[in-house]
Structures are given as C-alpha cells and as structure tokens.
C-alpha cells in the first residue's frame, strides 16, 4: 500500500468518525458557550485537544476559574487512557518510524482514530491516521464552533440518534476480531458486565468515564494476559 492509498483509505474510514464527531462536538460547543467561550476559542480547544471528556472537563474548569494544578490533575484523569492506547499503538509502528510520524500520529490519538489504526491489519502506516485526521478533526473543531454559534439548532431527536454513531464505530472494531478469536468472544460480554457493575458501584461509579475505562482496561487486560497469553501467530503485536 502506498502512502497515497493509505491516506485515501484513512479518509474513507474518517467519514463515519467525522459524522459522529460533528454531533458530539456540537453539544460540546453548547457547553463551551455556557462558560462564555467564543467560537474561535471553542474551535481552537477542539483542534488542539480532540478529546470529548477532556474538553468537557476543560470547559467546566474555565467556568470555575480553576487553578493550573487542578488543570494538570483533571487532564491526567480525563485523558490518561491515551497513555495506554499510545503504548499499544507504538507496537504497531515499524521500529524505524521517524520522529515526525511519532509526533503526528501521537498528537491525534483519539478513541476513534486509535480504534481505526489498531484494528488495521499489519504494521501501521501513519498516512492512514493522517487521512482519518484530515476528515475527522476539522469536523470536530468546526462542530464545536458551530455549537457555540448556533446552540440548539438541531432537533433533540437528531442529536440523540447521532450520539450513538461513535459507539457504532467501536462495535464495528471489536466484533470482527471477536468472531475470529474465542477468547475475545467470551471476554467482551464479561467486559460489558464489569463495565456496567463499575458504573453502578459506589465510588467507582462516580469517577469520570475515562478513568473507569483505564481502571477496567488495566485489570481486565492483565487477567486476560496472564490467563490467555497470546501465541506468536495471534500477534497483532508481532515481534
């Protein structure tokens, strides 16, 4: 696959991501407007951060006039899961990947772009990410700005329907591998159940969604890695 083909493939995969982003960022813009951000500030926040939970937290920090210490702490909590994703994604890079691509891909590790790149078979071509970023990030940033400008212009039932677009993408990423791998097939319903229990539990249920995802991921992936270590031929992460 040439870089050009990879870029086009990334752009195609970026379309559903962009649709989902547009809907989510539009509601994010409404939150940004509530704390007095201008459309340009909302655009910039989304362009530079591209993190839904993180940005919601960012806007409430701005609204509360929080300290820099709080900003650091909240950012680590809300966006900490990207550390795990980055570790996993790094294993798909060819070892000689230049620094520029490590920065370029790393800066835009979002839940959706990560799931796209990690589930693409073989080694990672950064241009797949760039293609998806080129389509999805403008939608995310412009959506935020439009949310600030236009507020509640979309009817509530459309917003509700679009809100599941991103989950549809996640489903399309984890179901096909589960069909091919019995361990994943059994593990995913267990993940659903544990995630639900964590959501309902006191204390853990009060944590942010991002933090719960990190805790659950570390615990479940550790148990799976001990109980069912991968064989070499399974390796998405082949040596």
């Amino acid at each position, binding site marked *: 696959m040439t870089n050009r083909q990879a870029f086009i493939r990334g752009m195609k995969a970026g379309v*559903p991501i962009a649709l989902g982003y547009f809907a989510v960022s539009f509601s994010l813009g409404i939150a940004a407007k509530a704390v007095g951000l201008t459309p340009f500030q909302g655009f910039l926040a989304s362009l530079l951060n591209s993190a839904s939970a993180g940005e919601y937290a960012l806007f409430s920090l701005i609204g509360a006039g929080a300290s820099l210490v709080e900003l650091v702490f909240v950012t680590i909590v809300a966006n900490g899961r990207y550390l795990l994703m980055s570790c996993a994604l790094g294993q798909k890079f060819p070892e000689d990947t230049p620094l520029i691509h490590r920065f370029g891909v790393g800066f835009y590790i979002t839940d959706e772009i990560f799931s796209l790149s990690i589930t693409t078979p073989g080694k990672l071509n950064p241009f797949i990410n760039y293609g998806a970023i080129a389509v999805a990030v403008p939608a995310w940033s412009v959506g935020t700005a439009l949310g600030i400008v236009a507020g509640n212009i979309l009817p509530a039932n459309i917003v509700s329907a679009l809100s599941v677009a991103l989950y549809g993408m996640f489903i*399309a990423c984890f179901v096909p591998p589960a069909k091919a791998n019995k361990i994943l097939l059994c593990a995913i319903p267990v993940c659903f159940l544990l995630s639900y229990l964590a959501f309902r539990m006191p204390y853990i249920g009060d944590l942010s969604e991002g933090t719960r995802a990190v805790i659950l991921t570390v615990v479940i992936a550790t148990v799976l890695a001990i109980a069912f270590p991968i064989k070499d031929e399974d390796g998405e992460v082949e040596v």
Partner: protein
Amino acid sequence: MSAYIYIIGMCVITAAIRILPLLILRRPIKNRFLRSFFYYVPYVTLSVMTFPAIVNATDSPLAGALALVAGIALAWIGANMITVSAACCLVVFIAELIV
C-alpha cells in the same frame, strides 16, 4: 486566567500523554505478558467504553440498547464501519419515534 492558558495547558499535557509512549517504547516488546496485555488493551477499552455508555447516550435507554444489538448483529455478518455506525443512528431515530 485567560481561557487560552487553559486550552494550551491541556493541549501540552494531553500531547505529552499521547506522544511520550511512542517516543520511549521504540523497540518491539519481547516480554510475553506485556505483548499479551497490549494485544488485549484495545478490545477491552473499546468494549468497556461502549457499554453501558451507549444505553446512557440516547434519550431513551431502550433505543440505545436496540442500537447495540443491531450494531453487533451487523458487524457480525460483516457490515463495514460506516454501515454499522449509520444503522445504529437509524435504529435510535426510529425507536425514539415509536417509544
């Protein structure tokens, strides 16, 4: 503080979280436990982020649950990402018209 300081502050910290592992872990990991761990990470993360969040995202929880079932069924029979995603939205839209 200006809103720009918050925006750029979060950007710098988040970029460090996202980029540092890519700079530090440059060699393929040989350890079998860690390789297995990172093999499972994406699927576990994506599934715990999907449920129960999809049910809580929609105005009617039933619509979200139907979208989850429809999405899994379509992905199982080999529908591509955009089809699954669009079908989930459509299921929610129709379900909320009825409910």
